[in-house]
């Protein structure tokens, strides 16, 4: 392989692009090469920043709301002490030492509390995203909605990928009857548009009472029917990898099937899995938002899709009400798509345009 010194002495004549690629590779493992490639991809970095920002937001809102609920239960926080009906705190506030005790900075309104007199206010300094038809502050709703919206996407996609990887590796490794059955099942599952099949199932099972509410039902059925794509990709990867010499060598050493599958073949097909997860989260979040938009979500949940569903008909006269949740869904899908594309280019440069 040519190095920079050789290039300087003129032993090799390499074009600029190849040299840059060599520079990228120098003294690095696979993952640091991937990271260096992503760092050069401006769109990919933009996607990464969006995704990181959203994840931070989801975690921050989750922790804040969790603490808030816990402290309220402990009786430490009181809403309006002069009003006995208001036993909950209405705002999440920031108080720093040195500030007057009775007027802390109001960060967010509690997502489940609303003030009827504040309904339908356009965006202003006090309410940057405006307020909705019942008097919730839209900024607070969007901030606290991030938890459910992102968590659903992550959990749904991770479960489908785990199920799909497991079934795909078994089918790809053993082949034969198992593989045939798996392929037929996938064929049946994939003949139905996912959105339509999900609506069908949610309607049938909306009365089921399980902890977690309706979204738990949605996620469970999503992971039961959504694993086909992952399984097919993992399966075809296994078909090509199990012919390789290193698997033969491992078998000669007396390794068990499970060891070969999970220790040797699976780590080698990690790259497509990472791409599936990243691009899949975008699709999953989009699917759940679409379901919620058409009224198949949980109307009691605080999530972007459900807010969108609630205020979609106000769009023509109060555009800010549905606009901001929709904007955040858009940014989330965009971020994950950008990051996924960048990861695909970085992990498998052959696919690059």
């Amino acid at each position: 392989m040519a190095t920079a010194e050789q290039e300087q002495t003129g032993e090799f004549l390499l074009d600029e692009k190849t040299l840059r690629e060599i520079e990228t590779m120098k003294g690095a493992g696979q993952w640091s090469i991937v990271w260096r490639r992503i760092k050069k991809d401006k769109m990919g970095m933009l996607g990464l920043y969006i995704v990181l920002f959203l994840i931070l937001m989801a975690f921050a809102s989750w922790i804040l709301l969790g603490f808030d609920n816990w402290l309220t239960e402990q009786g430490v926080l009181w809403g309006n002490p002069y009003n006995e009906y208001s036993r909950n705190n209405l705002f999440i506030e920031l108080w720093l030492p040195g500030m007057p005790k009775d007027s802390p900075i109001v960060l967010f309104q509690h997502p489940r509390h609303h003030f009827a007199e504040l309904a339908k206010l356009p965006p202003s300094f006090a309410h940057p995203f405006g307020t909705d038809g019942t008097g919730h502050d839209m900024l607070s709703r969007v901030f606290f909605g991030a938890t459910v919206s992102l968590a659903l996407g992550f959990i749904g996609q991770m479960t489908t990928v785990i199920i799909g990887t497991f079934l795909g590796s078994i089918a790809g490794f053993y082949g034969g009857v198992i593989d045939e059955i798996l392929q037929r099942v996938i064929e049946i599952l994939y003949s139905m548009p996912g959105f339509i099949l999900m609506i069908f199932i949610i309607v049938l099972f909306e009365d089921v009472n399980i902890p977690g509410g309706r979204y738990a039902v949605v996620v469970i059925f999503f992971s039961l029917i959504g694993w086909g794509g992952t399984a097919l990709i993992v399966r075809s990867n296994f078909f090509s990898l199990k012919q390789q010499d290193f698997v033969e060598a491992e078998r000669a050493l007396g390794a068990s099937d499970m060891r070969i599958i999970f220790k040797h073949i699976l780590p080698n097909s990690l790259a497509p899995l990472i791409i599936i997860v990243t691009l899949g989260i975008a699709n999953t979040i989009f699917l759940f938002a679409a379901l919620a938009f058409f009224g198949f979500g949980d109307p009691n949940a605080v999530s972007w899709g459900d807010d969108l569903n609630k205020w979609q008909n106000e769009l023509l006269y109060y555009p800010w009400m549905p606009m901001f949740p929709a904007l955040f869904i858009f940014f989330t899908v965009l971020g994950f798509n950008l990051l996924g594309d960048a990861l695909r280019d970085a992990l498998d440069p052959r696919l690059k345009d």
Partner: protein
Amino acid sequence: MSLKGFIIRRTIYIVPVMLGITLMNFTLINVSPGDPVIVRIGLLQCNSPECYNNAYNREAVEMGLLGQDYYTIPWFNRYVDFVNDLLHFNLGKSWYYTQAGEGIPIAQIIKERAVYTVVLNVLSFFFSLLLATAIGVVSATRQNSFWDRSLTVAMLLGYSMPLFWLAKLLMLLSFQLFNFTGVANKEAFKKPLFLNPNFYKYLILPTLALTLGGLVFMARLVRSQLLEILRQDYITTAKAKGLDNRAVIYKHAFRNGLLPIVTIIGNSLPGLLAGSVMIEAVFGWPGLGTVFLEGALFRDYPMMMATNTIFPLLFLVARLLTDITYVFIDPRIKY
């Protein structure tokens, strides 16, 4: 094997898949909890149990449930009955769409509504294919130019935009510009349909939304396929022998790029169908998607079974057509 044998084999292959799909749907309906009659009664206010029972019985009779042995025959026998009816093109009677106390036959509802969905989908599919080809060719032949970059960014933005929200935004834009929301109403569907100018007026926005939805998906595909082909050796050969650019692109590159594009478009039909359901719901377009959504919301089991049989059937037929198209596009393919 002959082409005819191939087509027959592929057509017969649809049967077991359809059996699997209907069996899955039927099982899901039968294991699901909840009573469709209660959903139908909805938020009925009753002071006494008798009032509630009366309402329950009235609804159940109207849905045709008490007359049949719905609750006594084991579900597998009912499945065999269902398949038998399906083979005779008898889809049963709707529980939600009723007329004079009796359900309208589903086959009739679907026959009436299918035309709206077909017009909307065929139009937007045609437009999006046309535009996607144009955009893909422009992007691929002028790679990294200003046009390519801006088109790629626009496609990426469109790709990340939820389709139902794109439709809503179009509605908002049209409302601001022309004071016209595009939500379909009765005057749009007066017969004769194709001579009714209002029909075309209300067709514009749904078609535009669905076109954009399919376009962003296909244009990315056409671009990457063309780029890959333009790097091949035979393109260099074609250029070297002095052909002009137009001939190279349309005669040599584009025809070879068609095959993967046809595959993915054929496989993406479920997505297009789902998109059609979304667009129809947003614009109140009374096609099959709306029928499906309303049937689902009111737990119209026969209607849900019917739509969930028709959608996969459409998809499987489309895939069959895709496979047959291959044979004509690519002479190398053996069947």
